[in-house]
C-alpha cells in the first residue's frame, strides 16, 4: 500500500476507482463516482467535479479552486500532492482521506 501526502482540501473519506485525467478533452474514460486525479482544476472542470466521488490534485492549497468546489459538493479532496498524476494509474483502487490530506493506493 502506497501513501501519497498532500493537503486537506475538503474533509471526508472515500474509497473508489481512480481516473487520471490531465485534460478535460479526455473525459471519455470518466464514469460517475470515479475519483478524479488531475494536475489542477479550473472553472472548465466544474461540471465534472459534480460527478466525482473525490478529487486529488498535484497543485493547489486549501484555498484552491479544487478545494472550494469539492467543499461545495461535499466530497473529499486532497490537493497539492505534487505527484498524484504520476503515481496513480487509471482504474487503481484508492482511498482519499480529505481530512488528513492523504491518498492511499490499495
Amino acid at each position, binding site marked *: 500500500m502506497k501513501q501519497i501526502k498532500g493537503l486537506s482540501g475538503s474533509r471526508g473519506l472515500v474509497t473508489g476507482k481512480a481516473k487520471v485525467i490531465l485534460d*478535460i*478533452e479526455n473525459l471519455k474514460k470518466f464514469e460517475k463516482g470515479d475519483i478524479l486525479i488531475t494536475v489542477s482544476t479550473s472553472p*472548465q472542470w466544474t*461540471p465534472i467535479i*459534480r460527478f466525482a466521488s473525490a478529487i486529488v490534485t498535484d497543485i493547489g492549497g486549501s484555498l484552491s479552486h479544487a478545494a472550494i468546489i469539492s*467543499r461545495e459538493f461535499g466530497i473529499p479532496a486532497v490537493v497539492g500532492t505534487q505527484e498524484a498524476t504520476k503515481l496513480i494509474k487509471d482504474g487503481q483502487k484508492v482511498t482519499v482521506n480529505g481530512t488528513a490530506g492523504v491518498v492511499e493506493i490499495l
Partner: protein
Amino acid sequence: MLELRHFRFLNPEWFRKPQSKLEATLRIPLVTKEIGILALTRVFPLIAIFSLTIRFLITFPIIPIVLGVFLYILFELWVLERWYKNNLLPYHIKNIDFVNKMEIPVDSNALIGNIEKSIRMSAYGIVRIGYVGLASWGWEMLFKFIYPLIARDKEYIYSDLLIGMPNKVLEFNQTLWEVANETDNSKKVMMYQSFLDKFGSVVDDMDLSFRTFREKPNAIKILLDLNKDTIEPDIDHQKTLNRYQSTLNSVKLIIPFPFFINLVNKVRANVVLREDRRFYEFVMDYKIRVMILELGKRKNIAESELFNKSWEELKK
C-alpha cells in the same frame, strides 16, 4: 522576457503550462504595463497617503511606512469587493460586450486593429480583476487565522461556513443540466447556444493558444450525457445550504454573534467573488482567438504554427 511562470507565486494553479510565443508578445507586455499603471495609480498613492498621514504623528523613519503598508492592506481588503461590483465589473462587462460584438472586418489591417484593441481591454480587466482576487483570497486567509481564536469549540471547521453560496459555478452546472434534460430538440438547440454564450468562454489557463471550453465539443457532449437524468444541481445546492445553516447554528463563540455573522458574510462574499471572477476575467479570449485564427487563415498559417509566432511576425 517576462513569462507566465513568473506569476505562479500568485496562484500555482495557473500559469503552469509553457507560454506560447504569441501570448508572450501580444498580451503579456500589455499585462505588464497595466500592472505598472495599477501600481502607480492605486497601490503607491494609497501607501503614500497612509504613510505620510502617520508621519505627522510618528517621526521615527521606518514605522510610518510599515504602518502605511498595513493600513493600505486593511483599506483594500475593505473596499475592493465594492469597487469590483460597482465599478470594475460593470466596466469590464461593457468591454466584453464590445469585443463580442466586434465584426470580423474584410480588411486585415482593421482586423489587426480589432485584435490589438480587444487585447488592451483584456489586459486591463485581467490585471484589475486579478488584483481584487488577491484581496478576496486575503479575506479567507484572515478568517482561517481568526476562526480558531474566536471559536469556543476547537474543532476547526471554518471551511464549513464557506459553502452554500449562490455563485456562477452553480449557475454553470444548473444551466448545463437544463440543456441536458430538455426534451424539445428545437428548444434544446437554443438553450445550448445560450449556454455557450454565457459560460462557454471559460479557459484552463492564461494563454491565447489554449482552446476555450466551447471549443471542446466532445468534452461538452460527455458532460451533457453525464447530466442526463440526474438530480438537479439546485436541489444539491439546497443540501449544501442546509449544511452551512447547521454549522452556523452549532458554532460556539467568544465574540457576540452579530459581529461574527458580519465577518462570515464578508468572507463568504469574497469567496464567491474569487470563484465568480473566473467567469469574467478571460471571457474575451474566445472572440480574440476567433479573430487571431481568422488572421492566420488569411495568411495561410496553420493553427499549430500560429501561436508559435510573435505578434510582430503575425502582423507582417
